[in-house]
């Protein structure tokens, strides 16, 4: 792709000046963005080669937060890995827990009681709400919006985190799911709090969209920026809202129908352009669908046990075998691959991190755009370095 490819504001603007500008191409500037940079969402680093402001090469450098999570998982018991999964994608401890629990349940052949399934859905969808609202805030922060949308997003996220805290004891490091159920039961008072939050969330989203979605500057900054085509995204293993933004309606909640998702009616929004604006809007629309799922789940949640009576907390030793469990996390497919050799520790413990795989196309998305766009594109991929580097 040429560095002077057409820019979004003037679809043909770049072409006719290219020959003139080529004469003036000077030295390339190599900038190391990160690992300490305000917009790399942690300790991510991109080595960016610039021609003026245009990116001609971009190499991501990972591993600054690497702690070999998988090795730790292989040297600790099945239960002992559960709190570590909180720390993968630390915004979505609940869905990480669920994916891991799902893989272990498949490995050990455990069933999950119905009430626990409902609780899992409620917590996963709350998790999705707070992740997407955070993403919207961070993305707008990356476009330079002085923190206002971010603060609104965090104001609402805080309410969800408080719910997590009063159920699981911790705002972010929930460590809530267990193999064959959940750790603690939710009181009806707690469910009532969730209900009132969910009922008020739509109004917040309306105000948030009024603040920013129609903003011309945001549109100029995001429409046509970082366009990703469907087939390329499928081949690159992009999942989650990133994938759906380029028109592939693949949602593991629908495809795998894990848990009790088939019982809920919800739609899967898909984008048509695959640009940053679509990635932002898909998340907003997914939040609206999540609100619907939450309302149905809160309406239907039955009473009953929350743990499989077969499940043991201590000394869990599944039969030799392997399993791969995946769910639709807020960032994409979060999967766990486990091999058991019959001992108390997994023989192989593998995390399939959505943020890490979604980064595959970062360079392709950024080429030809400006350095300012690279920040926005990175923001729209929605990475959490705890998960990328593991």
């Amino acid at each position, binding site marked *: 792709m040429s560095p002077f490819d057409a820019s979004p504001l003037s679809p043909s603007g770049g072409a006719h000046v290219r020959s003139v500008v080529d004469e003036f191409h000077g030295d390339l500037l190599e900038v190391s963005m990160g690992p300490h940079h305000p917009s790399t969402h942690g300790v991510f680093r991109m080595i960016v080669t610039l021609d003026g402001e245009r990116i001609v090469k971009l190499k991501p450098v*990972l*591993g600054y937060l*690497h702690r*070999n999570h*998988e*090795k730790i998982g292989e040297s600790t018991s099945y239960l002992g890995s559960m709190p570590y999964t909180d720390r993968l994608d630390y915004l979505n401890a609940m869905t990480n827990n669920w994916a891991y629990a799902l893989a272990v349940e*498949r*490995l*050990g*052949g455990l069933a999950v009681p119905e009430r626990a399934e409902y609780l899992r859905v409620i917590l996963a969808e709350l998790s999705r709400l707070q992740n997407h609202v955070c993403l919207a805030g961070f993305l707008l922060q990356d476009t330079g919006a002085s923190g206002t949308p971010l603060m609104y997003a965090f104001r609402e996220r805080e309410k969800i985190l408080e719910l997590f805290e009063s159920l699981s004891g911790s705002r972010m490091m929930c460590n809530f799911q267990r193999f064959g159920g959940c750790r603690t039961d939710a009181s009806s008072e707690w469910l009532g709090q969730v209900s009132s939050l969910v009922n008020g969330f739509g109004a917040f989203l309306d105000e948030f969209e009024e603040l920013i979605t129609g903003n011309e500057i945001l549109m100029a900054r995001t429409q046509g920026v970082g366009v990703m085509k469907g087939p*390329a995204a*499928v*081949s*690159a*293993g*992009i*999942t989650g809202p990133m994938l759906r933004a380029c028109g*592939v309606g*693949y949602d593991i909640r629908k*495809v795998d129908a894990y848990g009790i998702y088939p019982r809920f009616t919800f739609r899967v929004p898909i984008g048509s352009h695959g640009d940053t604006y679509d990635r932002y809007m898909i998340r907003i629309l997914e939040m609206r669908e999540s609100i619907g799922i939450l309302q149905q789940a809160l309406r239907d949640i039955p009473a009953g046990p929350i743990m499989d009576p077969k499940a043991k907390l201590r000394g869990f030793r*599944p*039969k*030799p*075998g*392997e*399993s*791969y469990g*995946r769910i639709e996390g807020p960032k994409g*497919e979060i*999967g766990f*691959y486990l*091999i*058991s050799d019959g001992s108390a520790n997994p*023989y*192989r413990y*593998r995390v*399939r991190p959505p943020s*890490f*795989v979604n*980064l*595959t*196309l970062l360079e392709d998305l950024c080429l030809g755009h400006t350095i300012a766009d690279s920040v926005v594109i990175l923001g729209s991929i929605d990475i959490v370095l705890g998960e990328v*580097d*593991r």
Partner: protein
Amino acid sequence: MEPLEQICSRLLARFPGAEVSVLPNPGPAAQHSLLVGRASVREIAEFLRDDPLLRLDYCSNATGVDWPEKVIVDVTKVTTPDPAGGPPKVSEVKTERLQPGYLEVVYHLYSMELRHGPVVLRTRTVNRTDQASVPSLTPVWRSAEFQEREIFDLFGVVFEGHPDLRRILMWDGFKDHPMRRDYVEPEDYEWEPTPHGDLVEKAKRARPPVKGGEPVA
């Protein structure tokens, strides 16, 4: 989706001479896998991706598994006829043999178009030292790009034909592969007091205690 055995026989028909077999998974998950030999894995992967019945266009997960060499004790019963003419004497003879170690690469394949999966594809290296290489599947599925780099980094599997095979999580100057079972971590980081005796001793040597307190066990 068609059963794995059928896929396997179709593959054998399509690629005569290819090493393809079904590796059963004894656990309750029953996700059996296709074990494919190194030589033909690239063509088979392309076939799996493009076959209209399968269309496994999405490689969700690629990972390595380390199977170090292991001593397997074979017990064989040897029947020696009793020279005295009594019932033949049965004795157990234990023979130890060394199962060579290998590194395994596992791909979890799904189809986004036909919405089925997973098909677990495995391939193995010859050994863990000088012939630890398999063909890269990054040209087939781009999503393997970073994941194969990670396997290269952490397990030491060399992927032939990978466009950019560098370390990804560990730093460039790092030696060894941390996810191997026999990896020994270097003692080069700063020790801090922990309740574990020898660590505390080390910490004390490195950093004398500032304040008194209950003597550290």
